[in-house]
């Protein structure tokens, strides 16, 4: 009969999520957001220009102020895209994946590998051009339970995907024997 043990575990003996360091995303990751936003903004501004011309809307002070506001918001979003890049990071541990993001609102999301139902790789045309990829992790609990990590180099995304699938596969097969050990990879 295997020896049964049930010693209490103090909170400070558990792996500490607050002490994790993170690996930054790809250096050119903000450019993906930049070009996506540029395409969208161009279509939006073109639409507004056409509307102004076709509907013969006079270029009054109010319209000028409105356009100025739109341009300022766009400029702020461009600045934010590049400024917030350094606040994003990913960390793969033995049992889970952590993702942090946000400059003003900073968030950390953790998904254990044994909760991942399936995993997808996404590559938009801009991401393909820049050599980037996004990973989306699906868990039970609806759309809010998914985690998307964008701005990874293709090779790193594949490595993470392989590791996660491997860990999830290993955990499923060997969960009775594995000890819980959540050191950094």
């Amino acid at each position, binding site marked *: 009969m295997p020896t049964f043990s049930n010693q209490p575990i103090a909170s400070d003996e558990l792996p500490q*999520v607050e002490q994790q360091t993170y690996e930054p995303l790809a250096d050119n990751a903000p450019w993906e957001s930049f070009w996506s936003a540029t395409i969208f903004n161009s279509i939006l501004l073109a639409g507004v220009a056409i509307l102004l011309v076709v509907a013969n809307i006079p270029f009054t002070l109010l319209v000028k102020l409105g356009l100025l506001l739109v341009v300022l918001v766009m400029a702020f979003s461009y600045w934010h895209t590049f400024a917030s890049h350094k606040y994003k990071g990913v960390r793969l541990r033995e049992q889970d994946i952590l993702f942090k993001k946000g400059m003003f*609102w900073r968030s950390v999301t953790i998904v254990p590998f044994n909760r991942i139902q399936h995993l997808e790789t996404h590559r938009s045309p801009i991401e393909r051009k820049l050599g980037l990829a996004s990973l989306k992790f699906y868990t039970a609990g609806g759309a*809010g339970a998914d985690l998307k990590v964008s701005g990874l180099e293709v090779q790193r995304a594949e490595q993470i995907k392989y590791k996660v699938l491997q860990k999830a596969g290993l955990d499923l097969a060997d969960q009775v024997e594995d000890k819980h050990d959540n050191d950094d990879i």
Partner: protein
Amino acid sequence: MMTSEKTVSRAANTAQAWTRLSPVAIAYFMVKFTLRFIKEGLQTALPGLAVFIASVDNKLFWLSITLPVLLLLIVLFAALYWWNYKFRIQDNEILVDQGVFKKQRLNLNFSRVQNVNIAIPFYFSPFKLVNCIFDSAGSSKAEVNLPGVSGDFATQVRQAVFNYHRQQHDNSRSSQDVENQTETAIHDSGELVLQLDNKEAAKYGLTNMTVLVLLAAFMPFIDDIGELTKRYVIPEIEHILTFMGIELQNGKAVAAIVLLILVVAVVIGFSVLAALLRYYNFRLFDDQSKLTRFAGLLERQQISVAKHKVQSIQISQNMIARLLNRVSLSFKQFGTANFSMAASKDIMIPLLPPDKWQAISQRVFATHGGNQAFTPIHSAYVRRVFGYFWLLPIGLLCGIGGWFAPVIWFGLVLLAPLLLIIYLNYRRYGLWFDQDYAAVRSGFIGQKITLFPLYKVQKISFSQSRGQRRLGVANVQIIIASGALSLPYVPIDSVYQLTNRALYLAESDPRDWM
């Protein structure tokens, strides 16, 4: 061949060829399509309905023609649906051909069947027929139904499913589930844990006023109803009051008040009736591995939930339940946050005294100490939420708008009740956790507590604004398979402790979360 195997063989033989349901099943389809039309068809018909309300004069006349035509169409469609509905059982698979215009073939292998539930609507009882429901849990299209089959057949098919599971997985949990299910006859099973007085079911009708939503359906006709009421109903009430010797100066106003009281009484009556129909003779059984509940007046329903599939327990108490000193208890399964169909598979105890919920919930989550004190959230929640999300925008709007039209300043009056709502919200928010369980409380006047084992957590995230970082608090979101739980302004140390503990258990506990 053993007797049980003989009966299985008999069941298999009778359904190997394509078989039609009993013609009584037409009644079942009529009810089903009527309910579906009310739930879904009305939304589609909204544009037409809007045109009807705006443009058509004699609405009640046209309604009196449309409704019987609709009813006739439902009867015809139900009959055609029954004619085209055939099933067979072969090679451990349930095959169903259904559909009138869009033909569908459903295949459900015995291995995917999680539960076999049985419901007995009142119109099936005289014919000793049942509705046999095969549940493949975890999907929004979770059920294959065989309405209008005999009780014996339903039991035999359930036995066949059990035998299949036993052959495939001798010691697996899934076979244990179905084995326990199959041991259950259509009647009682295990230890009787709770039997609710029908008065409690009626009280639940008082607390659950979703029937008020039905009143919204009458809003488009409010003018016509108003006219009819003024012309016929109010004078009648005035006559009755005069006849009773009640002479009043403003008879019309009093009559209108009496009418309003009558309408509210009727609405409450409908709510109580609906609750009685659903929870009549409510009984809850526990046979160690699953909970089974029996209830229902017109349709006697049996719902079983394997204990290990329960993701969380929700204890809720709205304003009226607080006055009645009662709580509702729900055992929530995977996917019930997202799939409205799946919500009906939860076991819900409509009302019970507050001192009883802990003992019942410990039958599923054995070691929880869930009636402990909750840690409140930070008081900065009130001033930040009120300040940034209400005072600032309303103040700006009133300030700018008031410059053009001074009456807009009265918008500031909204701030007082908003502040009260936010404060009441703040008082309700709370977090509790120990080594194995956690609970989140929220609410406004009533409250809702969601209790869950930490090892079932699917994902955790927490976020902080700059101000929250200075205060040492964070917003935390915990995802479990039955839905998401959020709490704002939780002390960051508690967030870290909870996160680290939950991750440790989720990643190391050998028990399956489902």
